[in-house]
């Protein structure tokens, strides 16, 4: 299945673009996607946004699935579906 991964600011360089479609196996969870992205982006991730061991992402990066934080879904084990919109947000401020 295919999910849309979007990001902003400093993470654009790490992910290799502002948005992209990513192919993952059916049943992939949020945690699984982050592991997949970590492996895929390792060469562009010298500061370790994605954790090399055990998957996941730095705690100050916000992950939203279809606009919602996984905490309000099923946490890292939230299962993704074809066409889902996954947003990775580094800290921002101001406004």
């Amino acid at each position, binding site marked *: 299945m295919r999910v849309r991964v979007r990001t*902003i*600011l400093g993470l654009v360089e790490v992910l290799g673009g502002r948005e992209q479609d990513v192919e993952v196996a059916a049943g992939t969870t949020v945690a699984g996607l982050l592991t997949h992205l970590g492996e895929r982006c390792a060469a562009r991730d010298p500061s370790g946004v994605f954790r090399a061991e055990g998957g996941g992402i730095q705690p100050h990066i916000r992950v939203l699935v279809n*606009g919602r*934080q996984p905490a*309000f879904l099923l946490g890292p084990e939230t299962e993704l579906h074809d066409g889902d919109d996954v947003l990775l947000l580094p800290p921002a401020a*101001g406004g």
Partner: protein
Amino acid sequence: MFAGGFTGVILRVDLTTRTSSTEPMPADVARDFIGGAGVGIKYLFDEVPAGADALGPENKLIFSSGPFTGTTIPCASRMAVTGKSPLTGAVGMALTGGFFPAELKFAGYDALIIEGKAEKPTYLWIKDGAVQFRDAGWLWGTHTGDCQQLLKDDLKDQGIRVACIGPAGERQAKVACIINERRAAGRKGLGAVMGSKNLKAIAVRGSSEVGIADEAKFKAARSSMREEMRQSPVLYSAFAKLGTPMVVDLTGALGILSAKNWSETGVFVPVEQLGAESQKEVNIGRNPCHNCPVACSQIKIARTGPYEGTIAEGPEFETYYSLGTNTGVADQGAVIAADRLCDELGIDSMSAGSAVGFAMELYEKGILDSAATGGIDLRFGNAEAMLEVLRLIALREGIGELLADGVKAAAEKIGDEAGYYAMHVKGLELPAYDVRGAKAHGLNYATSYTGADHNRGYAFQEIFGIPVPWEVDRFSYDDKGKLCKWNQDVRSATCDCPTMCAFLLDTSLPATAPANTAALMEAVTGLVYTPEQIVDVGERVNNLARAFNAREGFGRPDDTLPRRLMEEPLQEGGSKGQLIAQADLDAMLDDYYTARGWDVATGKPGRAKLESLGLGYVADELEV
């Protein structure tokens, strides 16, 4: 009288009689309201009678800094300007930074209360204890930048600080602001109040220092705060470099960057043209406020196109919305030029840009024709038209006369159908965040005492994902009334009153702001508070402001949102499908009034709540 922080002196100026006097800052006012917005609203409620004409001599203009202003506490440069808003008829309170607030403090004053109306254009020259009323006929008509420089030259002191109005304030345009340096007490039309008093400018120079009650505690509290700033994951690493425009990228991704008068949020998202990356080409410097180590405010230059070479301080995020996405203008140079024009003419870029976007939608829908626009092709995206209409607003000429008093008044003049497209709450135009995708932020628009004002109860939980005081789902309505109250009270108590830059609350102190404020208050002033008592100050201020508005006739029916937000779901983007239906707004309001201890049917504060906050006399005044 005070061990530190406060000068203990309020300067009162009567423009009608051309007299000034000083009086002590009452100890109980300092204790209960701290300063800034709290002191401003206290004097507004007590001294401006119900039903006063906001543009009449009975309205007052109160400039009030806080006990932290002028100290070496980082990011405490600010000052509130308070009066009855001519734009809304409710509390008008706007904060500004820069250097004027500290200078007023150095001159010896915690607050300056302007009363009456000068017979002819006047400026005030305040040098320490001396106050002079001077002719401003020669300054009338000047832009704000020129006005400030002319006064410095005339007074032969480049170090003086000036707060002034431009041509818009002189004409009492209700979207007029007050400018000091390149900062603005921007919203709610307080520039029109200053203009109504024939007061062109206030020049100030001071030579005293702000006292500190306990130097050892002060150094410890300041160090603790600095450490929290250093630990922030965003303050120095990103915010100091990118400034507020980074929120263009964030809100664009979240699908809440409002566009084309809120008709194309999530559809028209020009992040590449107006967002953080595009700043690199135009940023040429930074300009910190007094004693600010962050320096988020950026100097920008238009690099190409017809506005090449134009320099502005800003635009900030909100202006990239109001003069950018909201008008369909995805052009850095045009937004920089428009921002500079607003500053020079002395108009609030947010309300004025909203008015232009509103007129553009009406023009495209055929509700306004070319006769109404004076032949201006007022389609979305027409940058030249936007700049021309901004100029006309400030001068009250042509279509500018229609728009100069904001979208609510303009819609009433045009007729019923226009009202649907007038994006405001209580007459104050909406800020950038399309709150269909951020419910507590929307509830704050509906209930803020100044109208649709993101700064009075910013829901950083929804916008930035900060899990304080608890983690929230931005699309959920659960407990958003309680959250909105928390945001409004903490923001007021820890930012608007002491006074402190609100960006620190979001970036560095979300969980510790009340304790930080309490520690600093004890160190600076000698007044001892618990963190809970600090938050109580915010609740007191919000209740007193609400009482002022209730006395003016505002109630639950006014705590609402534009129909578009309640009837049209977002079409595209990261918040697709979201809206705030009337029933959901009603449920949030019930939760909010209950959390506040206000009457759920009327939205009025009751006697028990007011008395618990030491506001029994307010209950008497409201007859509740």
